């Protein structure tokens, strides 16, 4: 046994200790389920080797409400209330594909005016969802200020949604065959339904101009920030090949350079009547994912402004039977939600409710990519990568 404290041995000991390899053990790190950056209750169990993360296991189910089972014991009009709560940041857009699926099976032609109102509110939901992302993501990578701007601007959009539907987060506004008469509308009779509240066009124009300004402001405030760039550029790069095999969709897929947008490629709402761009990223890193969403806000605002100018007149509801029975058949309707492809696979047996309702949500597939993206990432980047996926746990767990 060599005594290390003996001055005679000092020399040889220090030489020996340099060549000794330090054995380290991987540490298991638990994140969540109530970590502020997890947008709900996602739990990650990660192995940490120094600053490097590997073997990340997402643990789901803390927000599982079993909507697919509940839908089997409810009638079609009741399910609209349920699906509102899947992605609560953009509640309105969850209703659209479900209602469109039921209408498709029932062969109902929805009046143009109702379609336009749906489209306007869907785009507003997208804007409000992206506002939340902008504020929250900046907060996650260390900038405190932007969330206050984002929340203030989002409020303007939520006020508009509320003035039409009566609800800020859970509008429950769509009906099979059209939309319900607006909350702020005057006395309704069958002949003269005042659908949109007074001053809606004026307020919307003001709010949309503000959205475009806000997006510009974010580009300067966040995008131009050197710290933000350093934290997000070339971090969490996702290739298009990996993304498509995992079913990753929406802004994340577009940030990886794929020009894929269900709004232009399917016809669940009349997007073909409007002129807008689809922002696409180049590198597929965190910065691109942020950038695509900011640019999308501007495009959404442009769509809303055009839709208001070209609002057709006419009824809000098609003729539908009082008791909704969907004919036997099956259909899958998908829509471009703020977070990606959302769709409902309705299997109807001709009853009051579906025999089976499969809910395809964007965040579920988007989060399934996390173990791949976080493999070998640095610990501080974990939050930056996770935040850039912009998921909501209601949308993951359903």
């Amino acid at each position, binding site marked *: 046994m060599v005594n290390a404290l003996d001055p005679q041995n000092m020399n040889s000991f220090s030489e020996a200790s340099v060549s000794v390899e330090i054995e380290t053990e991987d540490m298991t790190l638990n994140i969540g389920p109530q970590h502020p950056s997890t947008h709900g209750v996602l739990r990650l169990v990660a192995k940490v080797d120094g600053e490097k993360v590997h073997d990340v296991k997402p643990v789901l*189910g803390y927000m599982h409400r079993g909507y697919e089972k509940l839908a089997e*014991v409810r009638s079609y009009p009741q399910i609209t209330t349920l699906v509102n709560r899947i992605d609560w940041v953009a509640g309105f857009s969850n209703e659209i594909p479900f209602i469109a699926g039921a209408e498709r099976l029932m062969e109902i032609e929805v009046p143009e005016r109702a379609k336009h109102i749906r489209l306007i509110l869907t785009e507003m939901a997208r804007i409000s969802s992206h506002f939340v992302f902008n504020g929250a993501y900046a907060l996650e990578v260390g900038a405190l200020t932007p969330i206050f701007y984002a929340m203030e601007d989002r409020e303007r959009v939520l006020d508009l949604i509320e003035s039409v539907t009566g609800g800020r987060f859970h509008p429950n506004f769509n009906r099979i065959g059209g939309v319900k008469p607006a909350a702020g509308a005057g006395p309704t009779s069958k002949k003269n339904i005042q659908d949109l509240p007074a001053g809606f066009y004026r307020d919307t124009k003001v709010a949309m101009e503000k959205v475009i300004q806000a997006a510009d402001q974010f580009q300067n405030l966040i995008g131009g920030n050197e710290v933000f760039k350093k934290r997000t550029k070339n971090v969490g790069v996702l290739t298009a090949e990996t993304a498509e095999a995992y*079913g990753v969709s929406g802004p994340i897929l577009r940030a990886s350079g794929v020009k894929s947008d269900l709004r232009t490629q399917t016809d669940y709402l009349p997007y073909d009547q409007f002129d807008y761009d689809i922002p696409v990223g180049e590198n597929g890193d965190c910065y691109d994912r942020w950038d695509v969403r900011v640019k999308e806000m501007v495009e959404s605002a442009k769509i809303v402004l055009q839709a208001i100018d070209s609002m057709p007149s006419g009824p809000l509801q098609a003729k539908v*039977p009082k008791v909704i029975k969907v004919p036997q058949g099956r259909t899958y309707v998908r829509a471009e939600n703020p977070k990606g492809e959302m769709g409902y696979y309705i299997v109807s047996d001709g009853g009051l409710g579906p025999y089976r309702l499969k809910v395809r949500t964007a965040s579920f597939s988007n989060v399934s990519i996390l173990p791949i993206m976080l493999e070998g990432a640095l610990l501080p980047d974990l939050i930056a990568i996770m935040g850039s996926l912009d998921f909501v746990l209601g949308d993951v767990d359903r």
Partner: protein
Amino acid sequence: MEEFFNNIKESFKEATLEFETINIKIDSTEWIDVHKKLRDEFNLKFFSWLSAIDWDNEVSVGEAPKESVSPSFEIITCLSDLDNTNLVTVSTSISKSEPNINSLIDVYAGANWHEREAYEMFGINFENHPNLEKLYLPDGYEGNPMLKSFELISREVKPWPGDVDVEGMPEESESDGSVDG
């Protein structure tokens, strides 16, 4: 879409086109090969989802099928290409007594979580799955909640609230009960 459907028809004679969706029914033994073919030859690289349907005549939730069905699991995948112009669903039937099917992970990596969900919700066994364990449900949870035989406890305590709204409406008995907005 028409052209694509004709191409599909050359390989899969029984494919149908309904609501802009191509449906292909296959035998469960071809499950992997068909998906490989669709991915490589038909460029359907986007894996949208995988799920199952429990077909059974005796149900404890919802309504039973109007026509009698042979009890089985139907497994469905939904694929598309990145232009989103072509949408294809592939379905197969497996028996309920031996609910085994090959895992799709080698073809589409994204099938992983979808298969774990179908495993816990329906009790379907995906062979060669590297990590077939519960996704949502807590450890020790017994039963497969999405089975039609799985009871909703709240429905036992209280009948379906929808009955109150739907039953007894005068229009239901009339043959043409359409109303205006």
